[in-house]
């Protein structure tokens, strides 16, 4: 790796750390500025007086605000995100357990949505001016406009409750155990549970890559080098795929980062519709039951995830486009 590219990576990591720090600070302030007793954020009222004293001491809640802040930062960085009131377990452990489910659902959906979206977008561009295109666009816009949880509800009602093709919640049927994560991922039971949330999510996410790809294809097909390719006697299919689509794909790749960013929002909702035990569902449960440490921890990890995925998406883009050099960023 060249010196400038490693410098760029370091820059981005620093940016990531900065954003995380800001978010953590905001969280800290929210809890302290919240109406009511700030201690509530850390201490379950059901604890005994002695337990409460111990916790106050551990988190330095009797210390000045700025010292609390430093303790908070230190604890967060070392992975100690507190204790969940509701589950009576360390927040970091709960988060760690649910993280894979969220990753599988979110990353899987985004990747599939992009694959389907770009292919469909290129196809619609190719069919420009036909009735098929008009119909396709209407369907895509409708899906973009529809609330994703509502689509999920309809799919649930039809395919799960009515037709009984798919289960209605969770990641596993009762009593099923897996030897490892890998075994779980390929088991039919897991995939059946994954199917509906995945389809819902993909239907929601595909709109942006599709419309973007279509728009880019229409632009690229007017470009000089595409006309030249035709003059060179190359077959149309080759021109569309290896030249037009390849170039049209670049801005779609930048959208990848954007979509990953807002996919985590959609993920929260999809997880709740299908009772999919991921970070999003954890967050909502935590907030509903006033389990502040868990809520704070879940949110922090979700934010970190978003930023990390953003960074990865940027890396993919720079690899795809030979004209972008690290130095220019």
């Amino acid at each position, binding site marked *: 790796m060249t010196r400038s590219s490693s410098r760029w990576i370091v820059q981005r990591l620093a940016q990531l750390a900065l954003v995380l720090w800001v978010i953590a600070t905001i969280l800290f302030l929210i809890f302290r500025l919240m109406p009511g007793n700030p201690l509530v954020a850390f201490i379950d009222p059901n604890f005994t007086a002695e337990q409460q004293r111990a916790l106050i001491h551990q988190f330095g809640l009797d210390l000045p605000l700025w010292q609390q802040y430093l303790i908070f930062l230190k604890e967060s960085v070392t992975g100690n995100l507190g204790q969940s009131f509701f589950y009576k377990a360390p927040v970091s452990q709960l988060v760690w357990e649910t993280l894979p489910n969220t990753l599988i659902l979110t990353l899987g959906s985004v990747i599939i949505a992009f694959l389907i979206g770009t292919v469909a977008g290129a196809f619609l561009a190719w069919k420009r001016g036909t009735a098929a295109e008009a119909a396709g666009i209407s369907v895509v816009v409708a899906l973009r406009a529809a609330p994703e949880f509502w689509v999920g509800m309809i799919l649930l009602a039809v395919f799960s409750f009515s037709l009984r093709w798919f289960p209605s919640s969770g990641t596993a049927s009762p009593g099923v155990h897996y030897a490892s994560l890998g075994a779980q991922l390929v088991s039919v039971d897991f995939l059946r549970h994954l199917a509906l949330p995945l389809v819902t999510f993909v239907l929601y996410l595909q709109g942006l890559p599709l419309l973007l790809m279509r728009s880019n294809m229409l632009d690229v097909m007017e*470009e*000089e*080098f595409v*006309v*030249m*390719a*035709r*003059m*060179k*006697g*190359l*077959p149309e299919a*080759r021109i569309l795929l290896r*030249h037009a689509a*390849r*170039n049209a794909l*670049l801005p779609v790749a930048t959208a990848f980062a954007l979509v990953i960013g807002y996919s985590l929002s959609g993920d929260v909702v999809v997880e709740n519709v299908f009772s999919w035990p991921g970070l999003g569902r954890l967050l909502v449960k935590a907030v509903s039951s006033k389990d502040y440490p868990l809520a704070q921890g879940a949110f922090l990890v979700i934010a970190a995830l978003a930023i990390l995925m953003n960074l990865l998406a940027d890396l993919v883009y720079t690899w795809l*486009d*030979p*004209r972008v050099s690290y130095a220019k960023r």
Partner: protein
Amino acid sequence: MTPLLALEDLRVEYSTRRGVRRAVDGVTLDVLPGEILGLVGESGCGKTTLGRAIIRVLPRNARITGGRMWFEGTDLAALSEPAMRAIRWRKIAMVPQASMDSLDPVYRLGDQFLEVLVVSGGLGRSAARERALDLCDLVGLDRRRLQSFPHELSGGMRQRAAIAMALALRPPLLLADEPVTALDVVVQHHILRRLRALTAELGVSVVLITHDISVIAQTCARMAVMYAGMIVEVGSTIDVFAAPRHPYTMGLENSFPNLVRPQDTLIPIEGSPPDLIAPPPGCRFAPRCPFAVDRCTTEVPALRELAPGRWAACHRANEAAELRVQSKDARRWQVAAR
């Protein structure tokens, strides 16, 4: 000599929102084997459309609406698309304007050469690689440039690459559309010289399309002048320059700086080309012509052979000698604009 390409009353139209634009309106022209034919005209005269029509890659809203294009015994205008695709690049290739955009930005130069050689040319991969290297040598391009991406090449390099690409399958006919316009004069000179050498060496015919008559003067033995979708003059370059027979050509010469025959001032042709959606009746140049008479505004002058190989489309072509003298007077041209 039988021509390599014979255009017969070719017509190309664009459908636009405002109406049908007759961009090429009855062009008859021959291209002889092994020659470099210059085609000169101002922007919008239809010369680029003509080039695109020959290779049959026109924009979506353009169509060939009449005439024939005889090439190696077949009428290209009537050919089916698959048959035409077989001809493209193998028999007729184009060197585009020296722009960044004619090469795919995400593929290396070498890969784009290989693509043309393997897919269009049917060569095996190793034969293609050999040929690619030969082509670089042919145009004077550093072989290492095959590893570069288009945006890493200078304008001159790109143009050499474009010429190499066009010659890749050794087509008998090359269409060069403003091949050196975007380059500086020194590079222009080198590229044109190389082009001349190549055509002599390979026996390729070239149609050199440009708005710059100095390029024609330097490179072409024979030239044609195009105006408003029609050919107005054809002849050997020397004769057309020394003794133009069409007022437009006379005007063109006046408006270009000339190192050999010094002029005190450049005389531009006043006015602008006609709207090709509703062209004027009669001669298209009449509104700007200092020598127009009544007949010019009603009757379209036909392209007539005034001497062997010497054609002009002007009702007053017989008086050309006299008109030439008058065309040196700047005031004539100012009066002309109506």
